[in-house]
């Protein structure tokens, strides 16, 4: 059976891919496009490791089909740094040691980015609820929450 041919924009570049009807965006990114920065922790929407941004909204890539994405704009972790300059969130995650094993990190960074776009000055509680769909088993969340709050402050200061 022929694959569906889909044209999207990924991290600003036009990208074509072929996919079967049942193939998720997660599978397309990782298997068809070799973009393994988006992680698979469960495949069922529970862990958030696969969080990417589609048309401006954070979604679980494991719960989106490739065939739905004709014309969509997709942002993944691979596009977060601009050239060789890390995004303020990436910087702050390094400064605050907000990762241990790092498997949750790409998803959390994307979710945090989407969160700060909607709410540039969140409280600790808002950050915690905002990241509730992203499991981290290593850190106990403390340093992650601090890093996001600090990045938010930085981003506000630097416009």
């Amino acid at each position: 059976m022929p694959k569906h041919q889909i044209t999207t924009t990924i991290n600003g570049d036009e990208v074509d891919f072929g996919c079967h009807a049942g193939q998720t965006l997660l599978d397309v990114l990782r298997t068809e496009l070799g973009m393994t920065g988006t992680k698979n922790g469960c495949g069922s929407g529970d862990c958030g490791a696969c969080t990417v941004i589609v048309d401006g909204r954070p979604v679980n890539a494991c719960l989106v089909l490739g065939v739905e994405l004709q014309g969509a704009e997709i942002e993944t972790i691979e596009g977060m740094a601009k050239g060789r300059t890390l995004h303020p969130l990436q910087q702050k995650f390094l400064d605050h040691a907000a990762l241990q094993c790092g498997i949750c990190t790409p998803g959390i960074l994307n979710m945090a980015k989407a969160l700060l776009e909607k709410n540039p000055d969140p409280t600790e509680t808002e950050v915690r609820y905002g990241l509730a769909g992203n499991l981290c088993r290593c850190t106990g969340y403390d340093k992650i929450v601090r890093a996001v709050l600090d990045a938010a402050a930085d981003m506000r200061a630097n416009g």
Partner: protein
Amino acid sequence: MANENSTTNYKWVGKRTRRPDGVDKVTGRARYGDDMTVPGMLYGKILRSPHAHAKILSIDTSKANALKGVKAVLTSAEIPDHPLSQPPYAPIINDMHDISRNVMARDKVLYDGHAVAAVAATSERIARQALKLIDVEYEVLPHVLDPLEAAGRAAPILHEDQFTYSADGLSDKPSNLFRSITGQRGDLDQGFAEADIIVEREFTSEPVHQGYIEPLACIATASEDNCVELWTTTQGHFVIRALCAKLLNMDLAKVRVTASEIGGGFGGKNTVYGEPVAIRLSQMTGRPVRMVMTRTEVFRASGPTVGSRTRIKIGARKDGTITAADAETWYQAGAFKGAPVGRAAETFFSSYTIKNARAVVHDVCVNRPKVAAYRAPGAPMAAYAAEGAINELASRLAMDPVDIRIKNAVREGDESLMGTKYGQIGLLDVLEKVKSHDHYSAPLGNNQGRGFALGYWMHGGGLSSVSAHLLDDGTVTVATGNPDIGGSRSSMRVMAAEELGVDIELIKPIVADTGSMGYSHLTAGSRTTFATGMAVIFAVREIIEKLRALAAKKWRLTIDQVTWEAGQAVASSSSRGGIQSLSLKELAAMATKMGGAIAGHSEINAGGAGAAFSAQLVDVEIDPETGFVTPLRYTVVQDVGRAISPDYVEGQMQGGAVQGIGWALNEAYIYDDQARLQNTGFLDYRMPVASDVPMIDTVLVEVPNPNHPYGVRGVGEPCLVSAPAAVANAVENAIGQTMSSLPLSPPKILKRIDEAQAAGG
């Protein structure tokens, strides 16, 4: 040389530095188990038993074999069998007989999710489809899940060839009880006779999963000349190599294992699951085979930790002196023997100097997945019972819970129940810090309670290998054989830079594969910074020796006329005027012309890791109408020896505390009446999410471990040991009632509140 005895003036040790693998992990570049592909690779999938206990009557693979795209179908016939180990048994058993049966069920399936067959196909979809075409005929047998019941006479027997092992030899009838470990001293009867007050309680806990976010994943490439390359997510690729080679009767040297970046392990990635199956499928097909578990498979078939049933009795005098303590506990090993019984016996009472004490721990097989290690294996459930009983003792004596511990605390020179003698330990320092912390005396509101508990862990040392190379531009690679789970490369780099006296940016730490290094034991038991770190120090010191020799040669001096100071070889002032120093960079450039490249290596069996203690304070609030628990405030005070990388030490403590909150409140394996696991995903296996927990304050107490050049102790384990007990104690305190079975889920709490109300309490 770096100053061994000084506790101050380190250049890098104790500083907050960015980790060397950080950028790759925040940009998505880092490659984890499932991020690798190999050209021509096939997709492996495992068929799993829907029954908890059944005989396999037949397996028909013909339809699966006939599916287009299927390249091989495997059953246990393709996995070599091994004889059962015989007594006397080692403290930790790696029985190939069991491992062979755990990776692929032989005559019987022993738990829901037990592997029964596997396929390799050209796509994952085809592989999944093929599994549905395998016909397995089962004869379902009665099952048993509870360890007390399983140890009883009427229980269905999992292994007809397993007999209870004791000092008298083997039992005459097969039994699910494999063995019992006893730690004992003094005279219990006399101890209890001396007591003014005795607390007797029962505690239970359920198996919980390590809950790492990265599922198990590997790729095996077997060649026609019996070599294998294996890429896998593991806490110890040397252990994986040993287990695969032994299981599949291969030469160790021909199995080369590369550890991927690892997405969490906590003990759960210490052994083999899909690896031997992937290797066999690759051997059968002549193509690389990738094997990735789904989350459901991870829950159903990879090791959770033990669940426990504990009876405990503690007696004390009015002044709080504990005169006797006795515990007996049944640990679920899962389908195969090997519950961490020795560690449990060690944990019960080892924070306290109790003259008369006993801990008996039983290792019992039940129809659940074979348990794996989980942070301080065996200890948190023991501490839950022991600390719970001591907290009740304190409250009945109207004594401060910290004071009763200070009164009974072990000190340097004391011995643990299992005979470990304590060196320099920080227990009293930790307890004093708790008392002086403002959390300890902060006021509590309505429906709020405060909990306290102490955790102890005797750390591991063991085999580690390191190979360090000075390159001709003056940079240094430091290769270890230990996968980096939580920032160990950062600590290795810090220790190497500290020894060399150079900038950390000149050091590149690497995790090398099994073909490039001597044996290195697991990244587990909080041993890596201690043991592998020590090997790093020794390897780097060898480089320094060679550099001093090189400088001496250049200066025509003897080596003892050259010292190493702040990253430079320096001629001692008496030896020769005029010459000052040669930097690492200058020496590196000279080396290849003057005798060859410079490297240092170290292969050690580290001992003396020492004990560490973690005290935890936690406040919770309970909704008395629903039993909902909100953790409000949390403080961990721990003796860390020396924090090489304080950020990652704190991270370990915070992560441990939150895992403990999950364990105490909501996490548990839930089975239906057919012993089928009901909660096979994160939606119902309730690990804490970010909004469930508060910030976790940490207090690092640094009482150096004299057996490590910088004073390192492990930090990853003790913080989980005390956490469930502390949270449970806080819940009890908030509702003013005792509770004795984890998890303290809202239905249980509400029931307890209602019972107390009905009783007029």
